[in-house]
């Protein structure tokens, strides 16, 4: 396969995947619409947002026309031709989403601005958690793989399974109690701008890393052990390579293929942050944004976040496939 031809196949693959993404995103939006409007009519939504009592019909129709909810939902029966489908809320809102024009939230704020502001706090937590978590889990897993078949190995696996069995809520509550209340090293929750935010971020990052330690270490140990049993490792040993050399030069490098591709799939969704962590620590990120929107029944924000989440998920899938071909030349797209 010549380099030019390879590049061509990548770009044609990307075009296909992106074209395929459109029907999926329309489907996603359809599901969101159905879920929202199957019990809730636009009139109900208007009443919730305007306050349930003493709402005049004028105020409702005003609210609806301001936000574009005054059209029929999916099919406009009183129109003709193409307009049966285009003169609807669903068509209008979906087309806007595809141009990433999220518009205004139902309470009147600019969603795109909110997202661009709230993206960063989420990223400040999820990115360090991913990097540090990867560093710790990989080193621990390699260490356990070095001691495979001994008591260290079996007790480490038991420890990992026990750590996996603890609910994430307890890591958060326990960490807040120990470090913030008893030792008073870091504040319990909150957020600040710029460099001052570090003291607020330390605890969520630490807890994120510890919470993922059990599952990650065990998972990577399995991957390492699978590699260790392969023929090329036996060859390397037969050539007289030390155990350390085998682990670092052969096992680690080959095991990185599934690990890297797995991590790449996660990268885009890092922007969305973690709902639970952000809610607990009062971080003004996208996770808490979504929760607030759900609790205040702000359909515009929920729709935008679901759409964004799906776009990032599909992006993750595409990146995984590309990463596969980059790290393993045998695989073609």
């Amino acid at each position: 396969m010549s380099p030019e031809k390879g590049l061509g196949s990548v770009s044609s693959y990307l075009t296909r995947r992106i074209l395929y993404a459109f029907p999926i995103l329309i489907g996603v939006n359809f599901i969101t619409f159905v879920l929202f409007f199957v019990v809730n009519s636009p009139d109900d939504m208007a009443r919730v947002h305007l306050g349930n009592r003493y709402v005049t019909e004028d105020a409702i129709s005003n609210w609806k026309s301001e936000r574009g909810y005054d059209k029929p939902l999916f099919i406009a029966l009183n129109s003709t031709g193409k307009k049966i489908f285009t003169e609807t809320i669903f068509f209008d809102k979906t087309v806007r989403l595809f141009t990433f024009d999220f518009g205004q939230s139902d309470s009147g704020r600019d969603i795109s601005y909110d997202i661009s502001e709230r993206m960063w706090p989420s990223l400040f937590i999820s990115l360090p958690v991913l990097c540090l978590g990867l560093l710790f889990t990989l080193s621990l897993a390699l260490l356990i793989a070095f001691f495979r078949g001994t008591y260290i190995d079996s007790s480490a696996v038991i420890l990992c399974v026990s750590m996996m069995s603890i609910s994430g809520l307890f890591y958060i509550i326990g960490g807040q109690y120990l470090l913030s209340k008893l030792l008073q090293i870091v504040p319990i929750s909150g957020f600040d701008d710029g460099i001052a935010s570090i003291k607020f971020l330390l605890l969520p990052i630490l807890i994120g890393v510890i919470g993922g330690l059990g599952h990650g270490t065990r998972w990577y140990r399995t991957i390492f052990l699978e590699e260790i049993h392969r023929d090329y490792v036996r060859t390397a040993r037969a050539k007289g390579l030390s155990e350390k050399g085998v682990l670092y030069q052969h096992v680690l490098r080959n095991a990185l293929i599934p690990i890297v591709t797995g991590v790449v799939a996660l990268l885009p969704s890092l922007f969305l942050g973690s709902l639970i962590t952000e809610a607990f620590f009062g971080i003004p990120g996208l996770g808490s944004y979504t929760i607030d929107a759900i609790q205040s029944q702000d359909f515009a924000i929920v729709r935008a976040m679901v759409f964004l989440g799906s776009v990032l998920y599909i992006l993750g899938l595409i990146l995984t496939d590309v990463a596969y071909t980059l790290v393993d030349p045998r695989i073609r797209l």
Partner: protein
Amino acid sequence: MELVILKTDALFFILIASLLAYIFYASKKEHLARPWRSVLKKPMAASALTILAFYLTVAILDSIHFHPEIEGTSSDTPVYSSQVVSLLDEVLKPINKNTETTYSAPFAIYSYSKESQESDTGQIIRDYPRLRHAGSHLSNISEVRSDLIMRSLSALGYWIFAMAILCLILISLRVVKLKLIVADWLNLSTFFRPSPAQAAVITFAAVCLSVSLVATVGPYYHILGTDKVGNDVLFQGIKGIRTGLLIGTLTTLIMLPFAIVLGVAAGYFRGWVDDAIQYLYTTLSSIPGVLLIAAAALMLEVFMTNNAGDFESVTARADLRFLCLCLILGVTAWTGLCRYLRAETLKLKESNYIEASRAFGVLSWSTISQHVLPNLMHIVMISIVLDFSGLVLAEAALTYIDIGVDPSMESWGNMINGARLELAREPVVWWSLFTAFLFMFVLVLAANVFGDSVRDAFDPRIRELD
């Protein structure tokens, strides 16, 4: 008493019936019985299974609901209360009925907070009042320790008695031989490396001991304290078992038919069926799960406010919400299994025996049910047991952000949710959190250990390595 069958109860009993049917079926078929025997060859798995069986028993007791009869009415026909209680409530009545007024620490006989009260001399003083029920048979706090020791010793006595009776029954039924018991249990070299049967017996004995302790000490003290409104925390923890177990099993029961039918159809028929099914599961799985659940929870909330009159009791309402939570969790969970099953069916379809079956003109339906499905069952089995623990943990997290089970339902998520601000009190109210943690941890750990063992036994890739 008048039986009430809630929707989740009915589904749970269907589940148990199919579990029993499966056990009966598997015991007849060697290819199924063999991997199950190898699951139980691991001491850890045997002990985990014992714990799971105990949880299951509690959940079954808690799934038999009825309206209790109101006593002392003048009419001839019995009058039933509108309240729905379960058999477990009746069994645990000695623990449940002793409600206090507010928080109290484990084994405390004084309340957590001070109250104004009249002293013997008629003065009003602020002090910690005695609890209404816990330790009310004692005159002095110094007696607590000796009373506790006496009751624990009697619990130990009951336990030894029960164990001895059980041994005698087993020996007289010739299930085990006395000689073997003595030889096995007095052999110190096997003491730290118990056989699977020994591990199960030890776990069973430990469970029995804790039941015996709760039964003798529970009615007189609050073993794990009381919550804000004075309810016994241990009781809540036990009640949470049904919710935790049901969310892990009902979700699977609901999603399994979809995943199997669609996954096999996509892999077997290919063409437009495959395209449509692939489109469906890619779309569903690209919606972030939490958002899907949240949107569904919101929808249900609105539906319930609009149709508030349709529910005859708070329990029925909470039950419907719980069922919907299982349903929507199932919708988010089936895509992964469906994808696996499709890929495996694609592989199977290339195999010779399926080609032969098609060449003989066997109907697609019989080929699928006789040749494809039996070869997929190990994937289904592995996915059921491995998903279980994740679902139990998810319940707590979802309930915390108010999109989980109904606040009126006893669940570990609701316990954590109610207790999360209590750590800020002085002195710390830790027992609610601790109890939820303990019950959840034991269940999830047992499920994880058992699930690992099932995967090792059923995954052909791993079987080849051994």
